[in-house]
């Protein structure tokens, strides 16, 4: 009987380890491939990878992806805070007033948006923003990305707020705290680690999203755009275009750009993990 139990325990442990390795192996393979192919390109190009324009197909030098880097930073700088703020306020509304008709509407819209293909969102923004403005733009791209990101921030943040045990909410109210104080001084700080993780996942999603930019960004690679109303480039768009091209040099640039995106994710994840302390209940 005893040895049977031990055998079961061992079998369980082995199964868990095997499945965990099987789950994580593809991710590790992707990280490895991107880093091996991409970091060498960045090293070869040096600082110019961050400051130069992309190479022409016949060029011998790798050049850089400055327009794409600038475009991604510009678009992310608008879309990320916008989706975090909108997601957070929507989450507060639906968790604090779950029976309110507006909450039900917000919840339905946010959940529906998650199932809309991002390319469809790109088309809608093309019709509503790009056509009337007669130009692709950073603004149109940022709006498309905000719509793509909103269901993520909303879902993560409402799960984070709901994860706080009810006894802390009661304690806050018993001290005379208003709803606003309860949310900002108690619920958000207690769930800050989950909120930070949700915000980061959204950031990664915004930085890496391609389809939402297809009909909105404009792929301007002739210089570094800093205007909200002018066409821009973005790293994922550049990767998409270059990897599909027949030119070896553009393939190299695409690998370098992928590695840069991946390294940025890792740097952001690691720094937030170190900075945001977990709250021990």
């Amino acid at each position: 009987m005893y040895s049977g139990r031990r055998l079961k325990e061992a079998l369980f442990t082995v199964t868990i380890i095997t499945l965990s390795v099987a789950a994580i192996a593809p991710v590790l393979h992707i990280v490895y491939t991107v880093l091996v192919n991409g970091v060498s390109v960045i090293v070869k190009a040096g600082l110019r990878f961050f400051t130069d324009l992309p190479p022409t197909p016949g060029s011998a030098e790798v050049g850089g992806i400055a327009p794409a880097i600038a475009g991604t930073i510009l678009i992310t700088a608008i879309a990320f805070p916008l989706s975090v703020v909108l997601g957070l306020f929507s989450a507060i509304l639906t968790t604090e007033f779950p029976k309110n008709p507006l909450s039900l509407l917000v919840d339905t819209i946010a959940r529906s948006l998650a199932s809309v293909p991002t390319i469809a969102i790109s088309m809608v923004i093309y019709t509503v923003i790009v056509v009337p403005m007669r130009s692709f733009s950073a603004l149109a791209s940022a709006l498309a990305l905000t719509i793509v990101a909103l269901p993520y921030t909303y879902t993560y943040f409402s799960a984070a707020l709901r994860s706080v045990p009810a006894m802390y909410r009661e304690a806050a109210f018993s001290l005379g705290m208003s709803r606003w104080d309860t949310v900002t001084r108690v619920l958000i700080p207690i769930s800050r680690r989950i909120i930070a993780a949700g915000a980061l996942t959204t950031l990664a999603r915004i930085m890496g999203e391609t389809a939402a930019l297809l009909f909105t960004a404009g792929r301007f690679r002739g210089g570094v755009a800093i205007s909200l109303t002018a066409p821009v480039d973005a790293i994922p768009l550049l990767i998409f275009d270059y990897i599909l091209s027949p030119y070896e040099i553009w393939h190299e640039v695409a690998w370098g750009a992928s590695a840069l995106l991946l390294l940025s994710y890792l740097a952001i994840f690691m720094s937030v993990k170190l900075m945001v302390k977990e709250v021990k209940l």
Partner: protein
Amino acid sequence: MLAVEIEHLNVYIRHAHILKNVTLRIPKNTVFVIMGPSGSGKTTLLKVINRLIDFTEGVRVEGVVRVLDIDALKADPYELRKRIGMVFQTPNPFPHLTIYENVAIAAKLNGVARSKRELDEIVRWALEKAMLWDEVKHRLHAYPHQLSGGQRQRLCLARALAMKPEILLLDEPTANIDPINARKLEEAIVSLKDEVTVVMVTHSPHQAARVADYIAVLYDGRVVEQGPAQQLFLRPSTEITQKLLRGEM
């Protein structure tokens, strides 16, 4: 002088009739104990006094509840709660705040302390009143998870006291802590009644005997007996009270 005056209070949660025609008078600066078996409506009664009952889904409250001479059912609940502290059955100090911050937050939010020095004084006063100061004075910046369950509960008492409340509601505050910590908490409660009216829920007759000035016995949502503690212990007038005091309920 009454701190709380309740008349013909009926509380319904969805279709269940939780409190039935409850009438109670709680004199100021006393320890008023509400006794009763599980499910008799003790916690609901406390939550009516500070209007935490508002957060219960499907609740309906009827009757008159006067707290500190104001109509509690019509008052602004947030303002009302600033005058009433509460300690819950399970210790619930804020886990993201240090020991100092847990106590200070109540004083700060309610405008009890205006300067850092005043705040330091209130924090020390509240921790001393809760009999916790000596145990935490050298680690005020530690977090609650580093304290024992009993210390966490006394921290909650200090947090409630830092609001400088006029009424303190205690919902079985010693139910989840060890006997030594329970004794310290009881001593703190008794020492408080000069400054605050204490309304405490317990199902322990021994504890009621140690701390109570007045007792109300609640059974199935009704007050079956109330009066001075000594009188109730010496001459209980109902069979339910007799059973409760013998520990048979």
